[in-house]
């Protein structure tokens, strides 16, 4: 039963999101919100890896999302569409179906490499310095893109709509939503496996007590860099999807507010809990959409929510537990963290 339980869960969500969209049962707005939810799930889980499992404080995740968005969008627009920025496409738009996932992956790799630039100097230091450096990365990214006029600078970059239409012309599927769904599945699988592996246990050990884990043969520097690159790479993939969902990106969309939104989702869900991240990403995205009529008051509500969270429920919805830990009857169908933690214990 446990072998196939997660597959059934994925199939269920596929059936209620991608399938009806393909059949045209949902209108464009609902499809847009669902895609956004999927992107936010990927972002939250990727940030949870760094902030939750590793216990660091990275405030610049939006910058890596932005790197992925820009890189993926530039690639697809350059190769597959006729744009005002670059002119005629280099390849046939019909190949966009194959090029799109490749562009996403390249965007993710670019974000991971960019994060390497950030990680290497910052992990020499302790404590709050990662917060400071990632805060500066927000500014650096925005400033960097605003200076590159070839991709629109502060005015923004567009043209992804043509690529998505080109994909739809070949085979009529909700492509961006489909790839978002696959990205969510892949993210959950990667992070789940990473966290239950030896490296993942090392990451949690770093969070609990870095000096002790260094003494216990955990290569903290290497693991920190690996986890950081993985988290930022996934954020880059999410960024690429985001760019193609909203079809118009500019540096301000990947700035401090976006970083804060991601922080809220991570701490709302619980540091170190994948199910918590999923739940809070879904809930928070829907909340933000529901609050749209309030305009600017939305932006007041986000940090206020974070403060209240810190004051009254800092562990978030799920803390560091997963769903089967909270609802024991689920343990028949899914592995819980307790089983992973106690796997191979002396009492077996």
């Amino acid at each position: 039963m446990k072998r196939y339980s997660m597959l059934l869960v994925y199939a269920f969500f596929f059936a209620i999101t991608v399938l009806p969209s393909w059949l045209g049962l949902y209108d464009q707005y609902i499809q847009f919100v669902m895609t956004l939810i999927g992107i936010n799930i990927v972002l939250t889980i990727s940030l949870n890896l760094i902030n939750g499992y590793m216990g660091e404080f990275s405030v610049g995740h939006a910058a890596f999302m932005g790197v992925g968005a820009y890189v993926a969008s530039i690639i697809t627009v350059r190769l597959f569409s006729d744009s005002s920025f670059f002119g005629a496409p280099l390849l046939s738009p019909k190949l966009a179906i194959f090029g799109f996932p490749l562009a996403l992956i390249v965007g993710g790799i670019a974000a991971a490499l960019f994060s390497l630039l950030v990680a290497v100097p910052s992990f020499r230091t302790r404590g709050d310095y990662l917060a400071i450096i990632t805060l500066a990365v927000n500014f650096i990214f925005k400033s960097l893109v605003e200076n590159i006029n070839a991709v629109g600078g502060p005015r923004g970059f567009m043209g992804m709509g043509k690529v998505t239409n080109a994909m739809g012309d070949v085979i009529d599927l909700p492509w961006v939503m489909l790839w978002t769904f696959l990205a969510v599945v892949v993210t959950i699988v990667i992070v789940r496996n990473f966290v239950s592996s030896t490296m993942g246990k090392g990451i949690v050990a770093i969070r609990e007590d870095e000096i002790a884990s260094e003494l216990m043969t955990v290569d903290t520097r290497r693991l920190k860099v690996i986890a950081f690159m993985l988290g930022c790479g996934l954020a880059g993939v999410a960024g690429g999807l985001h760019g193609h969902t909203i079809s118009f990106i500019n540096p301000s969309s990947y700035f401090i507010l976006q970083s804060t939104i991601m922080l809220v989702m991570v701490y709302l869900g619980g540091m170190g809990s994948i199910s918590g991240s999923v739940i809070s990403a879904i809930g928070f995205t829907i909340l933000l959409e529901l609050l749209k009529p309030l305009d600017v008051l939305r932006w007041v509500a986000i940090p206020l929510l974070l403060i209240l969270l810190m004051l009254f429920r800092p562990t978030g919805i799920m803390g560091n537990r997963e769903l089967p830990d909270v609802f024991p009857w689920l343990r028949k169908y899914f592995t819980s963290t307790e089983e992973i933690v106690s796997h191979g214990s002396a009492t077996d």
Partner: protein
Amino acid sequence: MSLETFLQNFINSMQIGSFLALIAVGYTMVYGVLLLINFAHGDIFMVGAYVGYFLGTLLLNRFDFQLPFDLPAWVVVPVTVILTMAITALVGVTLERVAYRPLRNRGAHRLYLVITALSAGLLLEYLNLWGLGAKDRQFPELFEKQIYPISGVSVTNIQVMVILLAFSVMGVLWFIVQKTRWGMAMRAISYDRLAVPLMGVSVDKIIVTTFVIGSAMAALAGVMYGSAYPILRFDMGMLVGWRAFIAAVVGGIGSIRGAMLGGYLMGFTQIYVAAFLPSTYRDLITFTVFLLILAVRPNGLFGVARRTKV
């Protein structure tokens, strides 16, 4: 670059550096006492500027709502400045009371404090945006601007005032920290948090004092900044304040000397980079340079590496 341009840039750098130093000192003092990076401090600076704007405009009778009397400028200026400093200090203390103290008393992990600080700063910013709208505000002219041309370099009286004020305030601060009992307590807390209450000193009172001083200095910087650059934006806390924060960190967080040096260093970098390169590169170069300094000297220029006992 000609000597005149160099000197002109020098004066401008000293002015901007003074603002940044005043704000950076606030960051550093709170860090020294609480080991907390008060991300909201930049927005306290913004609050100071806006409170100064409201008080100044009100007292100078520039609003549509008129006061029944007219005050001469030499009354308005000190009243505005002192009231602004008082009100902003109140905001800072309220922030500490409502947001930081409950977490400290609970012994919450430092991470939660930092998140709260960041959120509080953003909250202030967006409250401003929501309450006052997106339109920029014009700071009232509290001082009549006079320009003194000295051999090709033009120096405004505001620039002179800002620089002198910054130095004297920092001198007063140095005196307080080094020569008074309050200052001794502040330094003591930064060395050994747990021993201080054992010596009969109330840690909470010292922390409140630190916030009062820091916020008042930020408010002074806000009023002077409004006088020098009269356009106020809702995100000036982020634009100016967080630059001051990076300056404080590069100077060595926890060291007041470092904060002052960092502030002036940041001011000079900003002005001279904009003098040689297109102004869009200013932030990029500034932040990259500062990150490089941190990479080489992780504790900042004056910072002391903290030893953690395992």
